[in-house]
């Protein structure tokens, strides 16, 4: 790949219509769409496409399981803001993608998946390795295409890219029959351009609504901005900062919004929702105005909707009209791209003094900080919170952190402070265990110059651990921190709180992860104390290639605070009364 000759040829195809095979058209179109990397796994029904790859300057990463390919495309997209691409063969290859596609769907991540299928003549006959993948993925894609003629390939792929990245992004699948790959057609990149993006007629911002929103902001005494993933997807960070600073409004973030507003900013009050800090959720419950920016009032952030922020008027700025009034009834809906809407709203917003309300929120933090585990003296126990805090501290908060799903994910969100967008990559909507390692491979591929860490639980890591070999084959420097608590920790926590500590199916035997790394030719270290952690992180960062840390932490620790599912936002389980310190040990 990447030779001068292939680049020249691929460029020529884009400007001069040429007769190509369907397989060549796949790559030529991807190249034209700016694709440099594809994650995939071959098989009979996609072999013609693989055979044509050598003619194009596109890098292919061989994964170990197609779920990994979809997660890598997803991690690539989240890290770079570009469309990620995954490829698989028909039947089992295609079905293996599904979890990854659903993960991207629930978090609105633009990926395009290309699958091969059996020849069009035998479609629908239960031919070898035939599945109806467009049928299967219909509810978990923004759209999908079944292509059975070579001339339809370029328009379908180009349309797929447009759909994937337009408005609210999401995954699109293009299923291409083998005969379409083998046949030929004139490849005319320009002529294959998709029809202009059809705007959703319900996506509109009325002047009266903008005025109404500005009026609500002007009159609010206790406003809170709720910032979600849309801030990052829309690139609205600057506008959000202007709004918050001009009107002195505190900002609470969703899990996927982390990084959308600088953690160190004095107006950032922290993460909201099920594992959000108490003062954040209390501020929302006490607010008289909520300005929801690119978030969807997910049940993980509202708790019981019947008791959610009852005193607050609500402004909802959201690109997807079907989200308006879906979970929470709002007073003003501004339906459009967040950055554009904020650009329209900002001139109407005057400076405001928010000191009193900010002081109230600050006061409501009370003694919470001294109960915080990171402020407790080193008792010889290593808590996951320490791990996150120290990782943040040592990396200077600059790294891209990719988490898996579970307790460690929530601790990361609480203790790693993200200053910039796209520095936290995590599966929020679907909560897909096994996401971390492959998504980190995608992120590192997209941003080779960035420091990339995977933080995974001992459970989730084992779901996609096979991708260690992909890291080796690709020579990627991905640092791996396994937060090893010997349990499917988050489920154990639910059993502890809600199922009388009946730890059914949550104790977990794991391989020696350092030996596992070693078997792949990767160095690693086991860590049991906080002192060891410091050194191990330094060694891992300094290592030339990937490095694995197997970090043994407290086994039966729980994530606090926690709002039990279905409770009101202010009804949370607080941190148990560990003896508060006279003075906090301070941030190291």
């Amino acid at each position, binding site marked *: 790949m990447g030779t001068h000759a292939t680049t020249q040829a691929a460029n020529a195809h884009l400007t001069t219509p040429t007769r190509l095979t369907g397989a060549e058209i796949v790559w030529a179109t991807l190249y034209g769409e700016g694709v440099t990397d594809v994650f995939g796994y071959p098989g009979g029904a996609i072999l013609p496409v693989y055979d044509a790859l050598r003619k194009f300057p596109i890098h292919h990463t061989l994964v170990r399981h197609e779920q990994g390919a979809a997660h890598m495309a997803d991690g690539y997209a989240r890290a770079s803001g570009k469309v990620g691409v995954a490829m698989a063969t028909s039947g089992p290859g295609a079905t293996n993608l599904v979890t990854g596609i659903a993960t991207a769907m629930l978090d609105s991540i633009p990926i395009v998946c290309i699958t091969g299928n059996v020849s069009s003549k035998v479609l629908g006959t239960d031919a070898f390795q035939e599945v109806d993948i*467009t*049928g299967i993925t*219909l*509810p978990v894609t*923004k*759209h999908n295409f*079944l292509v059975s003629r070579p001339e339809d390939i370029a328009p379908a792929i180009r349309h797929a890219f447009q*759909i994937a990245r337009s408005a609210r992004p999401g995954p699109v699948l293009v299923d291409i029959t083998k005969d379409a790959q083998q046949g030929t057609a004139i490849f005319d990149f320009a002529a294959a351009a998709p029809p*202009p*993006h*059809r*705007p*959703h*007629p*319900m996506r*509109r*911002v*009325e002047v*009266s*609504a903008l005025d*109404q929103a500005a009026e609500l902001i002007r009159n609010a005494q206790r406003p809170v901005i709720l910032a979600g993933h849309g801030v990052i997807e829309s690139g609205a960070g600057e506008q959000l900062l202007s709004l918050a600073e001009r009107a002195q409004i505190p900002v609470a973030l969703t899990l996927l919004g982390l990084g959308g507003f600088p953690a160190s900013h004095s107006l950032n009050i922290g993460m909201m929702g099920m594992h959000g800090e108490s003062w954040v959720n209390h501020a929302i419950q006490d607010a008289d105005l909520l300005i929801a920016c690119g978030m969807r009032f997910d049940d993980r952030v509202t708790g019981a909707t019947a008791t959610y922020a009852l005193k607050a008027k609500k402004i909802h700025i959201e690109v*997807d*009209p*079907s989200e*308006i*009034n*879906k979970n929470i*009834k*709002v*007073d*003003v*809906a501004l*339906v*459009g791209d967040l950055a554009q809407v904020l650009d329209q709203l900002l001139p109407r917003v005057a400076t405001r003094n928010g000191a009193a309300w900010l002081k109230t929120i600050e006061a409501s933090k009370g003694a919470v900080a001294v109960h915080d585990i990171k402020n407790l003296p080193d008792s010889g126990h290593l808590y996951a919170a320490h791990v996150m805090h120290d990782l943040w501290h040592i990396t200077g908060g600059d790294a891209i952190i990719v988490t898996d799903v579970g307790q460690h994910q929530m601790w990361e969100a609480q203790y790693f402070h993200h200053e910039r967008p796209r520095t936290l990559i995590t599966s929020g909507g679907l909560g897909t265990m096994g996401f971390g390692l492959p998504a980190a491979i995608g992120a590192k591929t997209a941003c080779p110059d960035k420091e990339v860490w995977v933080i995974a639980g001992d459970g989730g890591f084992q779901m996609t651990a096979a991708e260690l070999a992909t890291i080796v084959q690709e020579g990627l420097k991905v640092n791996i921190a396994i937060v090893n608590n010997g349990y499917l920790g988050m489920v154990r926590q639910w059993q502890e709180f809600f199922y009388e500590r009946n730890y059914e199916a949550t104790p977990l035997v794991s391989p020696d992860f350092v030996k596992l790394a070693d078997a792949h030719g990767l160095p690693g270290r086991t860590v049991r104390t906080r002192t060891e952690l410091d050194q191990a992180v330094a060694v891992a960062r300094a290592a030339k290639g990937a490095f694995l840390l197997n970090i043994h932490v407290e086994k039966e620790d729980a994530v606090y605070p926690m709002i039990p599912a279905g409770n009101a936002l202010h009804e949370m389980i607080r941190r148990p009364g560990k003896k508060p310190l006279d003075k906090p040990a301070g941030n190291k």
Partner: protein
Amino acid sequence: MLHTFIAYVDDKPGVLTRVASLFRRLNINITSLTVGRSERDGLSRMTIVCEASAEAGHRIRASLFKLENVVDVDDIAQAPNVTRELALIKVAVTKELRSQIFELVEVFRARIVDLTAESLMIEMTGVESKIEGLIEILRASDCCILELCRSGKMTMRRSHHVSSVVRAMSVPANESEEPRPVDEDAPALPQ
């Protein structure tokens, strides 16, 4: 409450599945659904009737719009409209009963479209209640309904309502991302 949506959709394979799948996902039963060609080339027109809460209308319409193959959606709600259904009814009749059926058909302004020694077929167009009325009387009579086929509802707004599809189509491509002017006819977003 009963919702009626008019959807213009691409006339392509799989589009009906996408629309139906959306209702399935929302766990909403489709009461009736009719599809056929529309006044626009390449677009089919659907009338979808379903039972859902009053607030669900906005969400269903917004979700339908999100489907790539759906070009326009109108929520008829309480707007003045003409709604019709077509029914074909085959009844077994003896010679003696025939004249009685003929009379009924006359009263209901239906038509006999097929006649054999032992059966006849009635075609009837009208509002749902009228069709149900005829069926009820037939059931109560001495003749036996052999087959019953109903088209489901077809709905069209009354008067000079300009379907928003026409305007959607007339928006020049380069303006398509611009915020659109207030649309008087479309149900407004709750503000």
